[in-house]
């Protein structure tokens, strides 16, 4: 069974939020209706986003790595949000594995968001329905678009080319190859959801502090080195 998904290279992602912004732009103007914004210029601006980028720091100073994690619906192969939906509004398409919400059936009970371990569903207070990433289903099947544009908006806009899209079950697809060649991994593997979206790991970077740097003239740097390496 085909399973369309995104593959995101954490080594390349620079956390510029272009994917999130373009996702918001496309999905607000296209067939799935507006993603509402509330108090956009006020003190507490809020809105519905399909895609959010989080930034984490791993390791201990000075051996740290900062990485950015774009997170949208992972289109799980065993999606826990689907069976809990009381009206069948949440469903997983057999032909491509994309998980969608039928807004005409959604009663806005929010139970699907309770059932998602990734926090990838957002309730739209204006439309009173649950919304989530559609993998730009209205783009990828649009035959009026040139074939190279039949990809999710986030993939097309990524300036670092950190995103790939394709059928992760098809050995000929770019997404499949990326996962195999670069050891793609998924979020929360223990949860039994079998997410379709994969991430490509960061390559380890080692920072070596040379002896001559310890004798640097910058007194601030010297202070840092003394405190963390020599316990001074």
């Amino acid at each position, binding site marked *: 069974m085909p399973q369309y998904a995104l593959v995101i290279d954490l080594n390349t992602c620079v*956390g510029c939020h272009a994917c999130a912004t373009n996702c918001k732009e496309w999905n607000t103007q296209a067939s799935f209706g507006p993603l509402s914004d509330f108090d956009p210029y006020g003190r*507490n601006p809020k809105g519905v986003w399909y895609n959010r980028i*989080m*930034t984490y720091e791993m390791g201990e100073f000075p051996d740290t790595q900062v990485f950015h994690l774009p997170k949208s619906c992972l289109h799980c192969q065993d999606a826990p949000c689907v069976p*809990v939906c*009381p009206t069948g509004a949440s469903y997983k398409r057999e032909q491509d594995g994309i998980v969608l919400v039928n807004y005409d*059936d959604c009663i806005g*009970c929010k139970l699907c968001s309770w059932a998602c371990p990734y926090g990838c569903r957002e309730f739209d207070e204006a439309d009173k329905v649950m919304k989530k990433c559609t993998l730009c289903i209205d783009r990828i099947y649009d035959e009026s678009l040139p074939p190279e544009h039949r990809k999710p908006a986030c993939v097309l806009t990524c300036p670092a080319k950190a995103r790939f899209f394709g059928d992760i079950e098809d050995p000929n697809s770019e997404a499949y190859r990326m996962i195999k060649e670069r050891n793609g991994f998924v979020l*929360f593997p223990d949860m039994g959801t079998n997410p379709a979206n994969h991430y490509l790991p960061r390559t380890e970077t080692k920072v070596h502090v040379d002896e001559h740097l310890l004798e640097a003239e910058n007194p601030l740097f010297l202070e840092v080195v003394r405190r963390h390496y020599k316990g001074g």
Partner: protein
Amino acid sequence: MHPPLSLIWFFLTAGISIGLFNFTYFMEFLTLFGKDTALPKHMVLISNVISLVLIGLGAIGASFHLGHKLRAWKAIKRFHTSWLSREAVFSGAYGFTLLIFALLRFFDHTGFWYHFFGIITFILGWLSAFSTAMIYASNRFVLEWNTSISVLYYLNMYLMLGSSAFLALTYFYRKEFVGTYIFLTFLFLALGLAFRLAFNIRQFYIKRPTINEALNLPHNRPIRVLDTGTTTDNYCTEEFYYKKGKELLPSILPLAYILTFIVPLFFVLYMWITGRVDYNFIKFTFLFIVVGSALERWCFFVEGNHVQNLFYGLYPEEGYTLRKGYMERKKTKISYR
């Protein structure tokens, strides 16, 4: 988790309704075995009207947490997989059969159909309660709720509310059963206290996932959230993390224990030991249980920690525990030449 007031309201109304009907019909059911437990018509009708009004008010109140209330009938579509569907269908059917039962009693039909609808209503009421409890207990991403204690405790709360409400009715209509219902109220209160304590104690022993597991990264590397990509709260942080509630929980939880269990247990034990049955004690037992249960449900929601909070750094800290297949946390060594 953010406590939805409409769901707390549904718990109280449905709990009193189903619990009260449970004991009302139980007394009627015993007459089938030749026991002298038949209740006066007036008492059955008062009890049924209270149950009907409460389940109706509960359904109306619970609908406030739905975005589109009029589409609720579609809930029947996923009856085979969704506990929310089952709850909606069973509670609706419970209200309907309860109405028929009350009408049969009103027209003095106390034969086969009376007991048939009594048994059906009894079963539907408990199926509805069980389905509601399972909505919480089957959520494997809120580890505090994901236990059979949640179900046992939830059902026991219905019995607590029901027996204390029924105690008030027996005081007026079948005084000879007051002693029995004082004992039953004591029993369900004591069980409720035990289940609640077990629920809280279990929280100390849950193996919680770490942010490393969420991000599928090495378990010997500390990870910090630097930025969550938004300057304000969003749906996920508001729905799954209730900051104000977390701050108030240490004060509200003891209060919930005192009002739900300690004070009512004192009243019930006093009546049981001294034999002085005072309607004021009965009334206050019920009122304390209702107010306490509302606070207890509020705590139940606030105590729940959804695993998605890990991505926002809002999950309870436990360090890095040794789990099967994972490395124990080690002090990261900083190496330079």
